[in-house]
């Protein structure tokens, strides 16, 4: 009797330990694969910025096509999450809209290596039927800080302005704030806030008086909303490259230290000339095409 009881207990215990131990082992094996890979094979995980996600996923697919021994998984989760995970070593690459120093403490951020894989240009967008195609920086600031509340004040129809923005922790919002609004805080108490740019576009599309901002990547093949020029400069990739349009930011891929071989290879691929075409087709900008003037203008902040 007693023996049986003991036997049962032991079998359950071995089962549990087996399951738990199994998980641990496979994780270790994965880690070994990625760090000790030769001839570019193994597994790579990346997570973070949702703005960079579609591009990183496309790059991962193309990279896996030419390197069939690699398995790359890219997840979203937000810039903060991506930075936290790469610093903790749970993913190989952390994608971020902002510099690591802004989200992590200095000591942790110092361990990370920044790769500015592409640039992302933001454009103010309005409803197609509004009939506004240019705003000055002063007008934009007035609109987003809630001082200007009617379109007639900036040469449009007599219609209330409906602000559609992103959460205060959003990377898109941070870029728009520092480069389009010259650092002025948006009026959160008078704006609709949307979790993602897709929802923002829908709100702008549905309301005649609405204004918001999205990355150019959301405007590729999208005729439902209209982008607005700032001080007469159209939000295009060409104007981003030549430095005349200022509202853009770098997209970062962070590795812990130099990163594994596969991580290096993947980031090299993302920054290569072959992939630059895909980057532009998706509405992002290639870092390599930025003129010195454009690079310099963004060094100040």
């Amino acid at each position, binding site marked *: 009797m007693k023996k*049986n009881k003991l036997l049962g207990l032991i079998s359950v215990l071995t089962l549990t330990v087996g399951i738990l131990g199994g998980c641990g082992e496979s994780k270790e094996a994965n880690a070994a694969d990625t760090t000790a890979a030769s001839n570019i094979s193994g597994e790579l995980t990346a997570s973070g910025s949702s703005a960079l996600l579609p591009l990183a996923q496309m790059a991962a697919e193309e990279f896996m096509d030419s390197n069939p021994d690699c398995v790359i998984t890219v997840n979203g989760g937000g810039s903060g999450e991506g930075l*936290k995970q790469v610093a903790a070593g749970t993913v190989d690459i952390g994608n971020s809209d902002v510099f690591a120093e802004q989200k992590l403490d200095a000591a942790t951020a110092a361990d990370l290596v920044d790769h500015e894989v592409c640039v992302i240009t933001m454009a103010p967008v309005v409803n197609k039927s509004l009939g506004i195609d240019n705003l000055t920086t002063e007008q934009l600031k007035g609109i987003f800080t809630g001082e200007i509340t009617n379109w007639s004040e900036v040469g449009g129809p007599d219609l209330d302005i*409906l602000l559609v923005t992103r959460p205060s922790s959003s990377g898109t919002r941070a870029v728009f704030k520092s480069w389009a609004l010259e650092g002025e805080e948006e009026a*959160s108490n008078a704006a*609709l*806030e949307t*979790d993602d740019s897709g929802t923002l576009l829908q*709100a702008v599309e549905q*309301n005649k008086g609405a204004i918001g901002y999205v990355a150019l990547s959301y405007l590729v093949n999208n005729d439902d909303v209209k982008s607005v020029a700032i001080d007469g400069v159209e939000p295009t990739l060409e104007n981003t490259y030549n430095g005349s349009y200022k509202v853009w930011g770098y997209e970062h891929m962070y590795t812990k230290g130099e990163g594994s071989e596969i991580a290096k290879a993947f980031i090299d691929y993302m920054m290569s000339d072959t992939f630059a075409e895909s980057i532009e087709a998706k509405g992002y900008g290639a870092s390599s095409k930025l003129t010195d003037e454009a690079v310099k203008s963004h060094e100040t902040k």
Partner: protein
Amino acid sequence: MRQSKSVVKDNKLGPLIVRIAGLLIIALTLSIGLFLVIRGMGTFVKFHHSITEFLFSSNWAPTDSATASGGNVGAAIYIAGSLLTCGLALLIVLPFSIGAAIFMTEISAKAGKKIFQPAIEIFVGIPSVVYGWIGLTVLVPFIRDVFHAKMGGYSVLAASIVLAVMIFPTITTVSVDAIRSVPDSYRRAAYGLASTRWQVIYKIVLPASKSGIMTGIILGLSRAFGEALAVAMVIGKTRAFPKDLLSPTNNLTAAIASDMGNTASGGEHNLALWSMALLLLIISVTCIFLIHLIGARAKKNERA
């Protein structure tokens, strides 16, 4: 001999597995609670904000950085948004829920079992994103066009209606069970005293099933408090107290969901979101406590 051995094995192994599984679940629940408490207290312990500020101030400007602090964490707008939308949802749904429950049990029991019951079960199975999506594409434009809402139809009203639809099945099913469990002898006695059907429902059945219906209401409320996605899609997420039912506001769950991934872990903004999550846990624990209280009181009354 052999046979008896295997019987013994069955009798020992099964309960052991069941016991381990049970204990694991309890440990999991407790550790989630403990984790929330530890994280949620950070706002008050690590950054020295007062609980009064958190609950009653509407000045929300937490610093999003791993080390710096000095922002404000007044979550009153979010708390008010949650309370308001849930309360309004309850007001909207109650007549429908109790009406449906009475219809399914007292008035047309056959149709209730064959048509209503399955229909309501389907209701429960619809994912919340679908409710939110329908709210966003149908309800929000409808409110904008019919009531000429200023902020494009994103409003307290839209959020409350979506929530009302979502908690309808919970309240209805629990109420149906409560009404069904009223003994038939009560009804027959009332009919014997020449009551009309309405009098039986109103004077006998509803009072007798009161505690069950209350349980349903609280269960529905706690679901409404925890719902994030569908509400976030239609509430507008404007950080201001709503001026009227047609203006947008924000609530606890939507604010947590939209900012959690982007904030610096352990920073002031991040921990303030954890405090909001802790508040949600406290609200739902209170709800569960209330349900037990009502249940205990009903049992006492039955015995007396």
